[in-house]
C-alpha cells in the first residue's frame, strides 16, 4: 500500500460521508458509487487503474468547470433576455456551447492558429510528437495539429451548409405539402419515398461518380439525400398545425399559402425541426466523413477529419492513437451539438406551450 492508494480511498469515502451527512442526495450517490467502483477497480487493476479513475474524474470535473465558467461568461456578456435564458441552462448546454464555440473559432481563424499549412510537409512520415508538432505527423509528414484545425473549417463548414440546404428544401416542401394536401402532397410524398428507398451511401456514390466530386456537387448531393427525412417530419408536424382554428381563420381571411407557411405554421413547427437539425447535422457529418474515407468526399490535400482517419488507419496496429484524434474531434462535436439541441428543445417545449 502506498500513500496514493490510502489517500485515494480516504478522499472518496470521506467525501461520500460528508455528502451523506449534509443530505446531498445526488452528490452522495455519485461519490459512493465512485467508491464502490474504485474498490472493484483497485482489486482488478491495481494502482494503475486507480490512476486512470482519478484522471477520468479529474477530466469530468475539469469539463464541468469549463462549462460552468463559459456559461457564466455568456451570462455576463449577453444582453439581458438571452442572459436570463443562459442562467437557467443546464451545464451540458454550457459544455456544448463551449465546444461549438471553440470549433467555430478554430475553423474561422485556422490560418492564424495553425502553426503550419494544411499541405505543408515538415518532417518524416508518422513522426512522433515533439516540441514543434503537438500531435505528431501524418503519413506524409504533415503536422497533425494544423490539419485538425483546418479540418474543422472544411468538414464542419461543408456539413453545416449541406444540412441547412437539406432543411430549406425539405421543410419548405413538407410544409407546402401539408398546407396544400391532395394530389401535390401525394406526388411529393412518392418522390420522397423513391429517394428514401435507395440506401444513402450507395445513392451518394452513384451521384458523385456521375457528377464528379467538387465541393458544390458534394453539398447538393448530400442535401438531396437528407431532404426527404426533413420533408416527412415537416409534413407530419405541419399536418397537426394545419387543422387548428387559427389556420382556418387565416384561410378565411384570404391569406396566401406562403404567408400561411411562413407566419402561421412554421413558428409552431420549429421545435421538432430544430431537434431534427441537430440529429441530421451529425448524420451528415458522418456521411461526409464516410465519403472522404472512401475517397469520394473532400479531395486531398485538403484536410478533412474523415480522410485523416483513413490515411492514418495503419497506425492503429502499432498502438498509436493518432487516427483516433480526428475521430475524437467528430465525436466531440456530435455530442456537443446534441447537448445544445436537447437544451433548446427543453426550452421551447417547457416555456410557452
Amino acid at each position, binding site marked *: 500500500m502506498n500513500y496514493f492508494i490510502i489517500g485515494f480511498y480516504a478522499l472518496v469515502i470521506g467525501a461520500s460521508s460528508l455528502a451523506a451527512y449534509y443530505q446531498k442526495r445526488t452528490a452522495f450517490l455519485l461519490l459512493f458509487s465512485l467508491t464502490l467502483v474504485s474498490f472493484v477497480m483497485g482489486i482488478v487493476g491495481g494502482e494503475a487503474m486507480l490512476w486512470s479513475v482519478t484522471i477520468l474524474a479529474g477530466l469530468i470535473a475539469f469539463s464541468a468547470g469549463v462549462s460552468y465558467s463559459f456559461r457564466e461568461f455568456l451570462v455576463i456578456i449577453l444582453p439581458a433576455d438571452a442572459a436570463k435564458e443562459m442562467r437557467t441552462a443546464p451545464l451540458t448546454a454550457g459544455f456544448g456551447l463551449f465546444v461549438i464555440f471553440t470549433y467555430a473559432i478554430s475553423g474561422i481563424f485556422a490560418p492564424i492558429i495553425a502553426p503550419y499549412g494544411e499541405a505543408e510537409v515538415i518532417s518524416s512520415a508518422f513522426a512522433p510528437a515533439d516540441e514543434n508538432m503537438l500531435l505528431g505527423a501524418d503519413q506524409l509528414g504533415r503536422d497533425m495539429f494544423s490539419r485538425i484545425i483546418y479540418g474543422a473549417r472544411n468538414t464542419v463548414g461543408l456539413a453545416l451548409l449541406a444540412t441547412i440546404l437539406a432543411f430549406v428544401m425539405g421543410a419548405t416542401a413538407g410544409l407546402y405539402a401539408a398546407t396544400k394536401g391532395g394530389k401535390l402532397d401525394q406526388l411529393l410524398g412518392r418522390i420522397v419515398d423513391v429517394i428514401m428507398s435507395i440506401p444513402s451511401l450507395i445513392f451518394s456514390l452513384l451521384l458523385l461518380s456521375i457528377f464528379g466530386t467538387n465541393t458544390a456537387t458534394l453539398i447538393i448531393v448530400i442535401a438531396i439525400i437528407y431532404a426527404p427525412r426533413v420533408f416527412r417530419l415537416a409534413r407530419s408536424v405541419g399536418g397537426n398545425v394545419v387543422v387548428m382554428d387559427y389556420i382556418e381563420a387565416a384561410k*378565411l381571411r*384570404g391569406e396566401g399559402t406562403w404567408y400561411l407557411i411562413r*407566419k402561421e405554421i412554421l413558428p*409552431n413547427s420549429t421545435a421538432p425541426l430544430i431537434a431534427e437539425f441537430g440529429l441530421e447535422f451529425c448524420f451528415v457529418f458522418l456521411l461526409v466523413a464516410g465519403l472522404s474515407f472512401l475517397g469520394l468526399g473532400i479531395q486531398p490535400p485538403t484536410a478533412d477529419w474523415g480522410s485523416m482517419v483513413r490515411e492514418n488507419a495503419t497506425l492503429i496496429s502499432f498502438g498509436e492513437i493518432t487516427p483516433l484524434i480526428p475521430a475524437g474531434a467528430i465525436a466531440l462535436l456530435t455530442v456537443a451539438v446534441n447537448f445544445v439541441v436537447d437544451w433548446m428543445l427543453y426550452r421551447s417545449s417547457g416555456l410557452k*406551450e
Partner: protein
Amino acid sequence: MTQDKSVLLNIKNLRIEGYSDENWIEIVHGIDLTLHRGEVMGLIGESGAGKSTIGLAAMGFTRDGCRISEGSSIEFDGMELTTTPAADLQSLRGARIAYVAQSAAASFNPAHKLIDQHTEAPLQYRIQKRLESQEDAMELYERLRLPNPREIGFRYPHQVSGGQLQRAMTAMAMACRPDLIIFDEPTTALDVTTQIEVLSAIRDIVDQFNTAALYITHDLAVVAQMADVIKVLLKGDEVEEADTRTMLEHPKDDYTKSLWAVRDFKKEQVPRPADTVPLISVKNVDASYGDTPVLYDVSFDIYSGMTVAVVGESGSGKSTTARCITGLLPPTKGEVLFQGTPLPPDYRDRTKDQLRQAQMIYQMADTALNPKVKISEIIGRPAQFYSGLHGPALKNRVDELLDLIELDPSQYYNRYPPELSGGQKQRIGIARSLAAEPTFIICDEVTSALDQLVAEGILRLLDKLQKELNLAYMFITHDLATVRSIADEVVVMQYGKVVEQGPKDVMFTPPHHEYTDLLLSSVPEMDPDWLTTLLEERGVDDMGEVEKNK
C-alpha cells in the same frame, strides 16, 4: 333502513402548494371541510378556484408538482390520509373512495370492454369473484337505467354514447360500494338532454347506497339539484358554506351574489327591420361530408344589427351550417346570399371584400389564436391585410381595438396568447374579427368553454359592440341560458334540419315543437326541486324514450 350519518371526511386547514418558476406557491389556502355519510357536498367556483385540487386531496392524492403542506389534516373515517403510507392509500382508492372524471370518453381505456374495466377494482381487492362482479355490474347498469343492462357492458367505450359512458363510469365508481365518491364535473361535456339522465342516475344511486359525495362543478343550477350543502370557493379560499336552500335564497357574500346574478343579463329584443334585404340569407342549403349528408334544406335569414341564435345538440349541424356560410364547406344544393347577391360557394372564389364582411369567433380560443404570434400581430394582421394600414396607423388601430375589447393596450400589446387567461383570449379572438371591420360575425360556442362570470362579460361585450357597430351575429350554442340573454331570433336544429324558428319571445312561449320543448325543459334551473319535479312530470319511463330518440 336507518342511515348512518356519522362524519366520514374531515378536512382541516388544508393547504396545497404548487411548484412553479422554482418556487412553491400556495394554491389552496387552508380549507376546512366536513362531510357526513350519505351527504352530497357541492364544491363550486371558477376555474383556478382549487375545486379539483381539493377533490383529489380528499383521496390523499395531489397532481404532479403539487404537495400538501405541513399542518394540513385529511381525516377519512378516522384515518389520517396525510401520514398514511402510499401503499395503504392505494388500497383505499377505488375500494372506499372513488373518482368520476369530467370526460368519461378520455378516462375509459378504449382497448377494453366496459365490464372488464368495471370488474378490475373488485377483482384486485378480492371483494368479489369475476362472475359475481359482472352480475353486480349488470345490476348497477340497470339501476342507472342504461339500455340493455345485461349486454351493454360487453361493448367497447367507443360503441356507446357520451351520456351512457358517463353513467357506466358512475357504475364503475360504485363497483366496490365506496363510502365516498368524488364527481369532477361529470356532466359538463354533455348536452342538456343527456345531462338530465346522468344527473338523475347519479342522484338516485348515491341515495340508495348512502354514499357521501363531493360534487365539483362550475354550474350553479346543476349543483342546486345534486348537493345537500354547497361550498363556494374563490382562488383557493372558501367564500362561504351553507345548505343548498339557504345558499340559493340568501347568499351572504358579494362574490356568491355575483355568481347568482350571472343569469340576469338580458339584452332587449330587437324586431326585424321592415322592408330591407336580409344581410345573410341561407336558402335551401344541403351539405354533406363525403357521402354522408349532414344538412337537409336549411333556410333562415339574418338581418343587420340582429342576433340569430342557432340551437341544437351536438351533431345537429349547427357548425356545419356556419361552414357553409363561410365557404369552407361548399353546399351541395342551395345558396348563401349576402345582401341579396349570391356568394360563391367556395371561400377561395370569394373576393377580399366578401371575405372581410363575414368573420368568425371560435369556441376554443386556445386553438383559434396562434400561440407563437404576438397579440399586436394577431389583431394587426387583418387590419393590415384588408385596409392596408401600416406603421403608426396600424399601431393606433390595434390600440383602438384593444380598448374596444376592454384590455389595456400598453399591457397586452407585446404578449403571446398562452400568457393570457381563457376570457382574455376570447376577447382577443373578438378583436381579431373586428379588425376586419365586418358586418356579420359567426360566434361558434364562444362562451361554452368559459366560466359563467367570464362568459357573461363576453356576452355583455358582444352586445355593446353590436350596438356600437351595428353588427349581425349568428350565435351557435347549445346553452339555452345564453340564447335567452342575447338572441333576437332563434333557430332550432336537429339531425341537420331546422325544426323551428322565430323571434325569441315567440319561441320561448308555448306551444313549442316537441323537440324545442324537450330542449327547453332540460335546462337546469336554480330551483333545488327542479329535477324532482321535472322527472315526476316526465315519468321515469320517459327517460328511456329520450334515449331512443337520440
